[in-house]
């Protein structure tokens, strides 16, 4: 009887890589600060905008891990227990990235009061604009800040609660009654998180953070679209770490069968994202109301044309063609490739959502974007690595673990 290899040790390479990426990010930040942020309003908007969409994207992607845990808990899923510590570890990034996002948004709204980013911060303009004046009840710095703080704060607190509960399954074997109680406690906490998630990511937060950049424009789909984008990237991130750990010889309970199911999530939610994308785009295209088409005008016909179609190719055409086959979802290399592609694709999607509104005349995608992204990727590698090492990789006494071990699709 072999014992379980449950203790992750951070390999030196992982450390080096994360530090290198973070260093690149900091370097890009400093160069950006010197060459862009201090060179006129355009450069500054580009610089801050880049920080904004990166931090928002990566925060939501990591938070999607906790959403995955809670959703599967509520659905009484058993299959994910074998690798559940992976999304748990990814969710420990949320306090860090949430903090960074909060700082950036606080800077934009309060310190800098940057109305080139959020037009509604310009009080004079708002007073002269009937529509913006009408929106004041929602689009004002106080509400923005309070709600942002609450949102991030509760994601962190409720997420921590779930992780704490998870640790209890490391301690001792549970009999049927204890197991029942344990599952029940998990269910309640998961429900709390999901409700808060619906009230923030599922509705208000994307309106505030991203949609209000186009202060006049509105779309009821916007938040669900953002959610779909971040969730499918979140699943891809889980897949990447699972494969990494498998390759290092950890997670012996996680097999191709589990990977297959993660692959199905990546496949299905890519299609779901496309569905929401199409619904939003087609309805606006069809009705052709100028107030609404203004959002797509420069994205489809203007300078963002390339990115617009690239977005569709990476996030729809590639997943549907490549991930459709059963073999593909069970192939470690292919899933790794697709996961990277999907994360990149949705990062580009966030890029065009934010920068497409801030810099309408020209596409700014360049070294700064990749540099800042490198910082966040490095942070993810470092923090997730540390979190993985801080706990056993498998919750040995989880009541559903055995189901997960014999799981097959």
């Amino acid at each position, binding site marked *: 009887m072999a014992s379980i290899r449950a203790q992750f040790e951070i390999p030196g390479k992982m450390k080096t890589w994360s530090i290198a990426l973070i260093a690149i990010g900091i370097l890009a930040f400093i160069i950006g600060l010197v060459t862009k942020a201090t060179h006129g309003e355009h450069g500054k908007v580009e610089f801050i905008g880049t920080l904004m969409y990166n931090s928002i994207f990566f925060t939501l992607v990591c938070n999607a891990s906790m959403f995955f845990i809670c959703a599967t808990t509520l659905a*009484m899923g058993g299959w994910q227990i074998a690798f559940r510590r992976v999304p748990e570890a990814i969710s420990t990034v949320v306090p860090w990235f949430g903090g960074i996002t909060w700082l950036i948004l606080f800077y934009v709204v309060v310190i800098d009061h940057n109305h080139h980013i959020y037009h509604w911060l310009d009080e004079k303009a708002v007073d002269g604009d009937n529509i913006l004046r009408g*929106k004041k009840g*929602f689009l004002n710095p106080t509400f923005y800040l309070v709600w942002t703080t609450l949102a991030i704060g509760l994601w962190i607190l409720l997420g921590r609660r779930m992780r704490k509960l998870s640790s209890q399954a490391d301690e001792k*074997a549970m009999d*049927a009654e204890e197991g029942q109680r344990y599952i029940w406690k998990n269910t309640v906490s998961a429900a709390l998180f999901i409700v808060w998630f619906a009230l923030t990511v599922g509705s208000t937060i994307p309106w505030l953070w991203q949609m209000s950049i186009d202060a006049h424009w509105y779309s*009821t789909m916007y938040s669900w679209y953002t959610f779909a984008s971040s969730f499918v990237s979140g699943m891809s991130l889980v897949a990447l770490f699972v494969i990494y750990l498998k390759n290092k010889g950890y997670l012996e309970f996680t097999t191709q069968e589990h990977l297959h199911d993660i692959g199905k999530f990546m496949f299905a939610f890519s299609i779901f994202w496309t569905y929401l994308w199409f*619904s939003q785009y087609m*309805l606006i295209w069809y009705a052709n109301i100028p107030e609404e088409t203004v959002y797509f005008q420069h994205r489809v016909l203007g300078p963002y044309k390339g990115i617009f179609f690239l977005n569709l190719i990476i996030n729809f055409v590639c997943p549907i063609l490549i991930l459709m086959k059963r073999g593909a979802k069970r192939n470690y290399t292919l899933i790794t490739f697709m996961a990277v592609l999907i994360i990149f694709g949705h990062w580009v999607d966030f890029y065009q959502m934010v920068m497409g509104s801030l810099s309408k005349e020209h596409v700014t995608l360049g070294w700064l974007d990749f540099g800042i992204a490198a910082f966040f990727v490095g942070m993810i590698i470092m923090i997730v690595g540390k979190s993985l090492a801080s706990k056993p990789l498998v919750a040995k006494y989880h009541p559903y673990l055995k189901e997960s071990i*014999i799981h097959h699709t």
Partner: protein
Amino acid sequence: MHLKYESQLREPLVTGNKDYHQVTEDICRPIEAKPTKLWYVGFFIAVTLLMFGVYSVYREVTYGIGQWNLNKTIGWGWDITNFVWWVGIGHAGTLISAILLLFRQGWRTGVNRAAEAMTIFAVMCAGQFPIFHMGRVWMAFFVLPYPNTRGPLWTNFNSPLLWDVFAISTYFTVSLLFWYSGLIPDFATVRDRAKTKLRKLLYGVASFGWTGSTKHWQRHESLSLVLAGLSTPLVLSVHTIVSFDFATSVIPGWHTTIFPPYFVAGAVFSGFAMVQTLMLMLRKIFVLEDYITLGHIEAMNKVIVLTGSIVGCAYLTELFMGWYSQNKYEGYTFWYSRANLFSPYGWSYWGMMACNVISPQLFWSRKLRRNLFVTFFMSIIVNIGMWFERFVIIVTSLYRDYLPSSWSPYYSPSIWEMGFYAGTFGLFFTCFFLFAKYFPVIAIAEIKYVLKVSGDNYKAGVEKEEKMPVEEFVHEYAH
């Protein structure tokens, strides 16, 4: 062979100490026995309603749409409300059979057959409304694209109404195929038990000569899986396209981008409520409590509270955007015509809110989820609420046009409009009663498939595995 194991914490899906043969017996019993009095009463009522419906439609066809109280701006009234309502109800069947199959929710096996039947009958009912709404129903074939002598003037492929034609007919066809391919093995079971010649003949024909060959089962499983995979986006597309009927327009309250997913969630919501209504009756009348357990009821109630909350989230999003957009027409529709209780149709909006968003929150409580009476009551409430939703969307957006000169008088349906609706209930229940009598209402083969994992008597058999330390368990059973 894989180890058949499921955590003991999970409720058994089949109770009452069944073995394979007992499963066959239990499910075939209603088919083989004489119908009960209750069945005759129900069937009689259903047929009566159907007859009334037929007469109402006869009036409409002979005398024209004027038999209905549609007016200048409310060109869609009860008819399209009912259409959307019935299509929506259909969605739960596909959701249970397809999406839950993909998600491997074992509890679907107890209810999928009846739910799929419900889907098919609901879609049949739904189809009546747009067809008879055409007025000159004998011209209905004009919706089909074929080379013709009218130009050749083709159908308008850019019109959501034509998308509907394709969506509903595809949905009906695929649901029927899915349902029937699942029925074939069960018909074979009934056939092999048949005592009379007529039964042998009919079930023999219906079973397509099924034998249970391993190769056939292998193909059958592959077929089910792919059909499930196809049905999942299909079911989403159907209500999506129904929502496009509204959302592609520029009418305030209709043109909103969240409509597609929100319609789908609402459809699933109402469908599950209808499944609950039917299942609670089925399990009682046919003594199927061992197969449709409290666990099944609870699982469905969870779906109801989930989808109800998603719908609620969408309602609030819309309402918020009605204000946030600062578009005065949107604002008028949402905040005057709908959310204002004292506007002419304000009652319907608040009825919808109460039934769809507020009352399902009861199901956060485990106790209420497992209470049969509450469940039955709520299932009716939700169906009423979802009818209100469609009524709200259609009527409150239409009754006041942009110009006050074309505001319409208060709309209430005529007796023939209501009769038509009642008639579809008749059609639905007539079909359902016939189904319940002559078809296996529970998928026999699928119950047998989960029996050794989830049957209460078999669950005790894995005591040893349950107690085993995880290291040993892995050593024994991991692949």
